């Protein structure tokens, strides 16, 4: 079986598996990385949203073969030695989560949005975040948290890289 090497949360990993195995199951079943959740498996709910080379992507829709040689970051790799990412801090400050199952995906989508657009309007947030379902209905707090994170990021002296 071929080996697929990529960078996962800053560390090189190598997985022996069929090239077409969806990355979500490589992460969850083979590497024990369970932050990305299964919510639909077909890219409509966003519960597995993670980053591929810094861009938001859906590990349920991409095979392990596709990410070979690339950098994958999941929710587990968002905080670093200096502490939580400003988006995570904002999520706690706004007390966003209810059941929490969709929140790793929501947070990763929000981080990707803020990287492209450091000062998003409500309309920008609506456009960027509407592919992530939250069944508990935390959208109003997610919106507030993104605005708060934007402020934190702008005021922060050292901007986290991820």
């Amino acid at each position, binding site marked *: 079986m071929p080996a697929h090497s990529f960078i996962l949360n800053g560390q090189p990993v190598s997985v022996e598996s069929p090239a077409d195995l969806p990355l979500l199951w490589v992460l*969850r*079943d083979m590497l024990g990385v369970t932050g990305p959740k299964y919510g639909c498996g077909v890219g409509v709910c966003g519960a597995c949203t993670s980053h591929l080379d810094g861009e938001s992507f859906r590990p349920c829709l991409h095979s392990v073969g596709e990410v070979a040689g690339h950098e994958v970051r999941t929710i587990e790799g968002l905080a670093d030695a200096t502490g939580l990412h400003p988006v995570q801090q904002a999520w706690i400050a706004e*007390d966003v989560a*209810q059941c929490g199952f969709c929140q790793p995906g929501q947070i990763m989508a929000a981080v990707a949005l803020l990287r492209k657009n450091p000062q998003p309007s409500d309309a920008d947030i609506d456009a960027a975040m509407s592919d992530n379902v*939250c069944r508990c209905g935390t959208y109003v707090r997610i919106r507030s948290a993104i605005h708060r994170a934007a402020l934190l990021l702008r005021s922060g002296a050292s901007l986290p890289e991820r």
Partner: protein
Amino acid sequence: MADALPTDAAPPGGLDRRRFLTWLVASPTLMVAARWGLDLPSAQAAEPSAPEETSLNLYVAVRTDGRVVTTLPRTEMGQGITTAVAMLVAEELDTGLDSVDVCTADADPRWLIQLTGLSSTMRYLAGPLRAAAAEARARLVTAAAHRWRLLALTLTTAQGEVHAPDGRTLGYGELAEDAARVLLPEVSPLPKSPGEYTVVGQPTGRVDARDIVTGAARYTLDLDIPGAMPTVVARPPTLRGTVQSFNASTARAMPGVVGVVQLPSGVAVAARTFAQAFAARDALQITWAPGPASHLSDAHIRARLRDAIGPRPLPPLLTTRVVEGRFDFPYLAHAPMETQSCVARVTGDTAEVWSGVQDPKFARSQVAAALGWALTPQRVTVHPIRAGGGFGRRFFTEAAVEAALVSRSLGQPVKLMWSRNDEMRQGHYRPASHHRILASLGPGGSVLGWHHRAAIPTVEFPHGFGDLLTAMAGQVLPDVTSAVFFALTQHVPYQFGWVAQELAEVPLPIPTASFRSVFTSQVGVANEIFVDQLARELQRDPVELRRSRLKSRRLKAVLDRVVLEGAWGRALPPGVAQGVAVLEEWDSAIAHLVEVDVTGGTPRVLRVVIAADVGLPINPKGIEAQLQGAALDAMSTTLSAGLHIDAGAVREGSFADYRWLRMKHAPASIQVHLVRSDDRVGGVGELGYPSAAAALANALARATGTMPTRFPILDEGA
């Protein structure tokens, strides 16, 4: 465990009329138990008759490291009970919120009630938890007094320490063993009065927030149970269809496949990864027999429900005019983000299952029965796990039964997951319904009668509802039927003369379950929409009509508050309108004011203003979250989310066609204002749904000139 020295802890006057029996449990460190779930007169409650033999009790234990542990017979599904319980314990013990660990109890029949639902958790646990924690504090203070040879009354507590007047301190951990041997507390073991609260009532972020935002929170399928094989099930295309024959030879030969097992519900495939299990599932060749609902589609179901309404009753005397309203609600899937899932490990004579279940005792009996151990259910251990949303779906535990059967068949642990399609198409559903409301009007704009007849397919209630309602109603209700539940819960809060509400139960072979707010999600919504229709008929303002007819002081207060905060009647552009609605249920009262804009074709909710009286608000931030979430549920199901049944099959398969609202549909704000009429603890989980749906419908009626009567209103596929 031997118990000693019961203390009849009567909470301060006005806080709670109930009294809770507390007592010390023989244990190396301090452990105080409280009887709960019983609402008995104090004479009976004071009877210390070896209660541990008949039922488990709530415990508050203090360990030598100073940590406080409470075992909770409830499941956290996002409703924030873990945080609220930790707050109550921290408050009464005067310790830090971060020193309290709230653990979920395994299924055990000795828990009188272990069901999470009916907005009951805090209503039933707050009293005994406060009593147990206050008693624990009194014993810690007494232990310190003995150690220091000081008068206990001179000591104070704060931040997990006892303080002496001379400045000495002792941590609770240092006192935990001594406190276990205190025979009689020398300071009051009574809970604080609400005026003394410093933790309870403060908006508090949830205690598991950090775990959630870092991905560390563990749901069922995130657990690391060694050797558990990913498993999925091929399911029939029709509801409760069955396997006629199948050929698994191709599937068995596929990479990673560990085994194929036929189940009553389909054919299970276990493999090294879920991806391989899905691939092998798709390679199964199965001939299905149609399920029992295969003759039913939406049109038949609607006709059956309409036919069950029957002829009009005679109106009351002096009726000059009868106004009729008809309403249709669809089947709904609960669609929690985490699909049904379970990890199971079955050996020769024991089974262990891990799952996010709302009724662990029911799960245990179901698994035991499936394994042929109905008479020895103690062989089954059920560990309730944090669930990714429940909403009523997790009262049913098919995934646990399936996982146990597959594990036994394969001789190894499995982790079984339902796909999103499974969740949508083989679930238990909030039933569809049809309603006829007749308002009888008399001379001079009087309302002489209100007659609501609701035709609803039979709702399957789990056994645990009987236990809970028995505790709530004060009479034994072992079997809760739709009729019993309807009668217990459905009320009209207005003076409308002769009021009657009737359930016409329609047996249909489509699996059902309770859904957030149960019958009120239809009956209560229809009533509040029709109150607005009545206002139009009588040419009265909807708020003014409600005010003049409401019987409840609490409802009038929350209505007044949303009218004020939401600026009822303020000037709005054409195509933008407000709507209001109210609800009193589970010891709480709520009013919603919704503003909607219909100028863009698709209605858009601009803002929601809520006033709620939940009695003592334990965690205002958590209450706000529940009410905001319920408002989104109400908007989703009123506007765009509903199921279609085609020849016994559910059409919708995922969030792509089951159109729950997304970020772009969420209003700019959902404000929550708390009104506090007294210090009883009211229910919150279900409170926020019905009047949010009705207020939205009322706003739509006022914006468009047409009262919505069929939901969801944006039904594209009828």
